[in-house]
């Protein structure tokens, strides 16, 4: 016990003597939270559109007016013909084009229906989809207005099915509520995986491991010395991140913090183990960085931070069972937003425990004092 205590003391001393450590521990969470949460948004603002109005009627002008009044759409240009409007799309000055054919209004009045064309730039499929969604909504509203206007006819509420959805766990569909827990999960992963891996391989690079290996130090003492400090730092950063989340974004925190920190500790053991395992293979910090970076990208993109994991192909969903971040990503959201307990998170908890045991055992086994 005295030895473990002393080893931990030594590791902490070294960690805090490293000039880069304090910025990594304090500045990184602030940056990630403030920058990424605002930047990684699904909300669309400032959708620019160009208009080609061959009809130039009350109805067509009314729609353009309505779009311009919405906070999401900005009118970029009024053009005489389609070719000129397409130029805007080509030069990225407009995201979509509205084309009203001649007789748009007449047809509407006579035949009770009319058609117009919308061309959307789909270089970014997500943006295109969201723009179309907003546009459809505004069009539907406008539709109702002109029925009232033209026909002097109030559509009876009874005749249509009214859908009023209620969004549980995030009633306002505030994307920040969705993103913040995700960013926190990324933060914990970065701290866990890189710091532990880099720390061990640094001893290899400097040759200090050579001196350590001829001492009677026990393997598990040494590994504990490499794990525990970063477990504590990881949990501290999670707490710090939660503090920012509450203070700046006022994220709802429905669940119990005890549950969250238990899950986070188990998860940290998995990523710390993965970091150590990588460092037992690698000889330099550079190699750890590259392998760690590769794993991080895969873990993050498959974790469900941006896109729901359920929409991935079945084989990818199966593969994702190997992604530790997948378990933690769903856990942290479920705990914070829904108030899930450990019972609800049994699957994630047991999977991570098994994963952690495997990772750390492999790391201890791979770390050989003799070669």
């Amino acid at each position, binding site marked *: 016990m005295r*030895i473990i205590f002393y080893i931990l003391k030594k590791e902490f001393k070294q960690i805090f003597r490293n000039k880069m450590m304090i910025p990594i521990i304090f500045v990184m969470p602030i940056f990630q939270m403030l920058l990424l949460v605002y930047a990684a948004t699904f909300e669309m603002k400032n959708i620019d559109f160009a208009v080609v109005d061959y009809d130039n009627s009350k109805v067509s002008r009314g729609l353009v007016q309505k779009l311009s009044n919405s906070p999401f759409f900005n009118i970029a240009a009024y053009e005489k013909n389609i070719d000129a409007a397409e130029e805007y799309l080509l030069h990225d000055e407009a995201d979509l084009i509205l084309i009203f054919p001649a007789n748009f209004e007449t047809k509407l009045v006579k035949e009770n229906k009319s058609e117009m064309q919308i061309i959307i730039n789909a270089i970014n499929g997500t943006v295109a989809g969201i723009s179309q969604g907003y546009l459809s909504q505004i069009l539907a509203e406008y539709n109702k207005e002109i029925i009232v206007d033209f026909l002097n006819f109030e559509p009876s509420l009874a005749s249509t099915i009214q859908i009023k959805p209620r969004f549980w766990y995030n009633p306002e569909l505030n994307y920040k509520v969705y993103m913040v827990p995700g960013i926190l999960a990324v933060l914990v992963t970065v701290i866990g995986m890189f710091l532990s891996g880099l720390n061990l391989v640094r001893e290899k690079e400097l*040759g200090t491991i050579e*001196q350590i290996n001829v*001492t009677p130090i026990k393997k598990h003492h040494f590994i504990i010395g490499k794990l525990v400090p970063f477990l504590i730092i990881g949990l501290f950063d999670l707490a710090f991140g939660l503090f920012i989340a509450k203070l700046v974004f006022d994220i709802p925190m429905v669940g119990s913090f005890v549950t969250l920190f238990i899950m986070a500790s188990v998860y940290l053991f998995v990523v710390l183990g993965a970091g150590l395992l990588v460092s037992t293979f690698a000889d330099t910090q550079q190699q750890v960085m590259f392998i760690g970076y590769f794993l991080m990208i895969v873990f993050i993109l498959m974790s469900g931070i941006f896109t729901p994991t359920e929409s991935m192909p079945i084989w990818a969903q199966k593969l994702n069972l190997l992604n530790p971040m997948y378990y933690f990503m769903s856990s942290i959201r479920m705990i914070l937003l829904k108030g899930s307990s450990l019972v609800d998170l049994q699957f994630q908890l047991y999977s991570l425990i098994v994963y952690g045991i495997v990772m750390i055992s492999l790391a201890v086994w791979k770390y050989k004092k003799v070669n």
Partner: protein
Amino acid sequence: MSNFSIDIQNINKSYEKTTALKNINLSVNKGELFGLVGPDGAGKTSLIRILTSLVLPDSGQAFVDGFDVVKDYKKIRQNVGYMPGKFSLYMDLTVLENLNFFATIFGTTIEENYELVKPIYSQIESFKHRKAGALSGGMKQKLALSCALIHKPTVLFLDEPTTGVDAVSRVEFWGMLKDLKSKGISILVSTPYMDEAELCDRVALMQSGEIMQINSPQQIVNDFSHTLWQLKSDNLYKTLQSLRNWDKTHSAHAFGQSVHFVANSSKITSSEIKEYMEEAGLENIEISGIKASIEDCFMELMTNNPTN
């Protein structure tokens, strides 16, 4: 249990295609200061790493303090001190923290073994709150030696401790080794410097993974059976070239500003050599008969067994 502090029997080691050690047999007596002498790549470090249980031999057996380096590696790690060739202490910890750390992981304290490290540690004690990375080369070396001694080892392994250390510190360092030896610690030290070989009780001359000779430095020098000449002239390189082309030459090696020359017949005279050198167009010729040094013996051994 043998009376040897280190006992090596038929050790072989190769890394992929390179052979690092070929059939090494060697024993070091208790309380002996033993030197492994040879150029870079001779296998000195590999041998020390096997003896400190960091590397497993391919075949053969080795015992340190009676413990098998493979089976009883745990006992060995308790009982030996090791100073690797590269400075391997924590640069970001202070002198005192380093020493304390190594004392602790050996389950001891600085106070307990202070007597042993005192002569060395006291020289750097005034810098005990300075980080190891900020020490000078000589002070780093003293700290490394203190850390290797803090658990009172019975055998001390030093891998090229004086490489890259200034001349004054080198002399000082060998003085410290003599002191440790007098306290009963067996020391195995490797060095590429031939002049340091003369400071050991016995040395093994190594080359390309093989031991060419084991003996006391005195005996090695006495065993040098040839007449050795020291030749000087105005042009060292030309002297060497012309002598190597002479049919009466056994060997000719550059030693500083002179050439050490051995003829293939002991009957050769200095006037005969001078005559040859003058014919070769050399001037300011000085010729004297000298006593062989360890380096001459090493060169002689290499001339006789051109292994690679």
